[in-house]
């Protein structure tokens, strides 16, 4: 197992946002966390990447415990995080944004390879290399955010609502890219409100409700599940 989360709990002051959830991600798989606002999806991702403290539980990556490690060390181990809302360094060029993603790489040749690798996945970014990030369209900004995560050469990418606020055509574009990342051997943890998209992409799904896992299983099973259909797929 590449990434394992066991009995994770997260508190914001006295409010418990994540109430003891467990999940696991296999190598080369896409796992998705779906659920409504406030279900605790983003908190789980932040806890994995070390951006918030967990109050209980364990996170293991390649068998090693990574909870209580600092965020930058976790990135160094191979977990990249694409934050919610396509957050970029808006006043920097596309190239600089990507460059910062490879913050931990000091080898020049390796860095060039990383750039090439990202531009293969996102050819449009090569064209827009010297443009300020904030001047890009929403979809392109999402690509920069994903490209920036790829620059760190991760084994797992945590993606927080990549489809949020994008035009339908862009959503399917992003979906294609996520699939191609999987084909390249990466694992993805995908947090989505767009449940039908997420379940179509994922191998395994977790349905979150107010900080606990209500349902989990293979995504094709979840798609067929009556409860999921009614609550999340609008059917």
């Amino acid at each position, binding site marked *: 197992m590449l990434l394992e989360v066991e009995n994770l709990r997260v508190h914001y002051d006295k409010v418990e946002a994540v109430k003891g959830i467990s999940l696991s991600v296999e190598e080369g798989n896409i796992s998705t966390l779906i659920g409504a606002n406030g279900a605790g999806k983003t908190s789980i991702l932040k806890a994995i*990447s070390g*951006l918030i403290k967990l109050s209980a539980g364990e996170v293991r990556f390649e068998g090693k415990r990574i909870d209580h490690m*600092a*965020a*930058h060390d*976790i*990135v*160094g181990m191979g977990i*990249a*995080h694409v*934050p919610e809302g396509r*957050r*970029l*360094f*808006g*006043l*920097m060029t596309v190239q*600089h944004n990507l*460059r*910062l*993603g490879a*913050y*931990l790489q000091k080898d020049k040749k390796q860095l060039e390879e990383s750039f090439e690798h990202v531009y293969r996945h996102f050819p449009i970014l090569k064209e827009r290399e010297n443009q300020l990030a904030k001047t890009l369209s929403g979809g392109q900004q999402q690509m920069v955010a994903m490209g*920036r995560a790829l620059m*760190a050469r991760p084994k797992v990418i945590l993606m927080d609502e990549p489809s949020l606020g994008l035009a339908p055509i862009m959503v399917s574009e992003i979906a294609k890219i996520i699939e191609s990342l999987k084909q390249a051997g990466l694992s993805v943890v995908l947090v989505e409100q767009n449940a039908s998209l997420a379940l179509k992409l994922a191998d395994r799904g977790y349905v979150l409700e107010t900080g606990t896992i209500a349902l989990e299983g293979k995504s094709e099973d979840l798609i067929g599940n009556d409860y999921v259909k009614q609550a999340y797929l609008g059917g």
Partner: protein
Amino acid sequence: MTENTKMATGVWVAAVAFAFLLPVICGYDKYILHVGITIAFNIALATSMWLIWTLGFISFAHAGFMGIGAYTSALLFTSLGWSLWINMWIAAAVAALFAFVISIPLMRTRAVYFFMASWAVGEVIKRVFAYYRGIFGGWDGIFNIRPPKIDIFGLDINFTSRVAYYYLALVCCALIVFAIHRIIRSRTGAIYWSIHESEILAQHVGINVLKHKVIAFTTACFFAGMTGALYAHYHTYINPKTFDIWQSEFSLVHIIVGGLSTLNGPVLGATVLTIVDELLRPAGWYRVIFFGVVIILTVLFLPGGLETVPARVRALVARLRGRSD
């Protein structure tokens, strides 16, 4: 290299050349050289303060760290007789050491809280100098700090000479500005601006934010400490008031009036305002009011500071040309 950066480099080279020729141009006028030395100190202080700003912080303790450098160097001279050549580096190191220790808790605060905390640090530094009369001479300060001498290879220069000290201040100031330029142009500079823009996002990317903040703060205070030592041996007399909040505030005004987004800003601001300040000397205490007025006018009518003037002029010329066509 684009047209603009070529031009900027040209202007820089011209400015440095002018600075080196100034003693000859002004006919070794002592007063003008004094203003030149003051400008050099102010530039060094403003640019190093600006280095902290690239991470999004304004430190009101900056002049305090200059004071730590000045007192270190002064005490080494008066008690051990060591010259500025050695003291300057020890002064910078001591200021950096204090900065390193205090920055670890200080850099955990944000925005306006950092303002207040750094203000307190600056005030404490000043008070310590004033309180321990036995060591630091209290409010009276330290006297009889002598400029250094060079006596090697048949070269015999005494830096009590205004011209010699002018060149010393100029070289040190240029080195500090160049060092900061290199830092900002490097990968580290990009990391600083990224922390400036969004600390949380920088963390997402895997940047060790606290580490970079501590290093930047320490580096900036190293330069401030060095400037302090140069200041002490030039004026031969220091007291706690020289290094209080006001001094930091002047540097802040220099940065804001000059411009915040490139290194040109603090250099330009410190130069222009030091000259204006000297011209206003007859106005006495009203000079302080002038600084307040200048900062308000800049924010209102010249957001971005003096460094944006060339671009504004270019835009204006282009518009006028467009109209006449």
